[in-house]
């Protein structure tokens, strides 16, 4: 697979990778703190669990938003080229996957924030 194609695949999967990172960070930190009885621990006055959820959500959301913007740019460039069918398809799918990943990351962050961490 050429370097350009690898980049396209990575861009296509960027949102899903960001979601996986958010999922792993939130559940890893939350279950570790709950397991050790530190669910209410604070750092600089902020609860570690909610701070982790909010920061993981914001960072992965921002990263996915960047991926969406790149996907749109890439799609516009591909649209100008007459015979780039595969490239056009991949950039189109990248927009959809990354766009939906934005929604999923937000839903996941909201759920983790609303529900009790150690229930």
């Amino acid at each position, binding site marked *: 697979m050429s370097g350009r194609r690898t980049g396209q695949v990575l861009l296509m999967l960027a949102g899903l990778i960001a979601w996986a990172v958010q999922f792993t960070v939130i559940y890893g930190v939350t279950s570790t703190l709950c397991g050790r009885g530190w669910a209410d621990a604070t750092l600089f006055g902020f609860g570690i669990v909610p701070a982790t959820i909010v920061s993981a959500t914001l960072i992965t959301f921002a990263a996915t938003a960047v991926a969406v913007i790149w996907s749109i740019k890439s799609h516009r460039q591909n649209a100008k080229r007459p015979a780039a069918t595969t490239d056009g398809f991949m950039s189109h799918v990248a927009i959809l996957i990354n766009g939906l990943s934005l*929604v999923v990351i*937000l*839903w996941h962050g*909201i*759920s983790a924030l*609303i*529900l*009790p961490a150690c229930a």
Partner: protein
Amino acid sequence: MQSALDPAGGDASRIYWLTMTMTVGGILIFLSVTSLLLYAIFAPPERRAWLGSRRTIIYGGLAFPIITLSALLPYGLIVMRDSDVPKAGALPIEVIGEQYWWRVRYPADGDRVAFSTANEIIVPVGRPIAVSVTAADVIHSFWIPNFGGKIDMIPGRINRLNFTAERPGIYRGVCAEFCGDQHARMAFDVIALEPAAFETWRTEQAKPAQDPEVPLLARGRELFRAGGCGSCHAVRGTEANGQFGPDLTHVGSRRTIGAGQFPNNIGTLAGWIANTQHIKPGVRMPSYGSLTGEDLRALAGYLESLR
């Protein structure tokens, strides 16, 4: 009759409105989609063309579901978060599911002594209730639809359910997990009383049974003793101390017998004693059909007098 559509507590009310929102919303969406489907089939091609446009698919197929689900998700999660929350000062009650009845225990609370009853849970209005449930034989499920969700009763495990009755009344609870032949006949009453009335009830329930003064009832008590009823049933204040069946110390004060099967009176008590296996086949209590009519009246009268 139990009904989740007549909420009498905060949790049940939240679940009710979530259900209503989703049901009404689901119906409206279903009708809209069906109408569009019919329109797509029967409308002239030039009029239905917009249905296949990119904009329709993006707004109707992507944006609308995302917005709708984005609103429903936090709503549902907040309902879940705010339901079944343990509260300080809650009244502890223990309920044990058994084939096919409910053992109900009120643990000692301050200077109030512990006691047991059956098939009836009395609660004070406005005070949080913390119910601990388990099962003695098979898996049951404890559900009072008017007060909230259900919870499994699993042998060897204690689960907890919290609710608060917001208005006085008589509500019905049921077993919500198939537990055997008579599963459908395993109900109980939840009676929500004003706090003062609840305290009076609790004080009365903690007292031992009164000795009968009428000769017929004294004969009933003697039949109860001689018949070995006390090896399965307890009547506090007498030598009957069985733990296998329901505590009968104040059985006469209960609304129903047979776990919600009949109103509690001398006639139904007599019928129950004489023919349990006809009324509720499979219950652990055998039928005492060999009792004479007079003995049956005396025995049922004695039980009915235990108030």
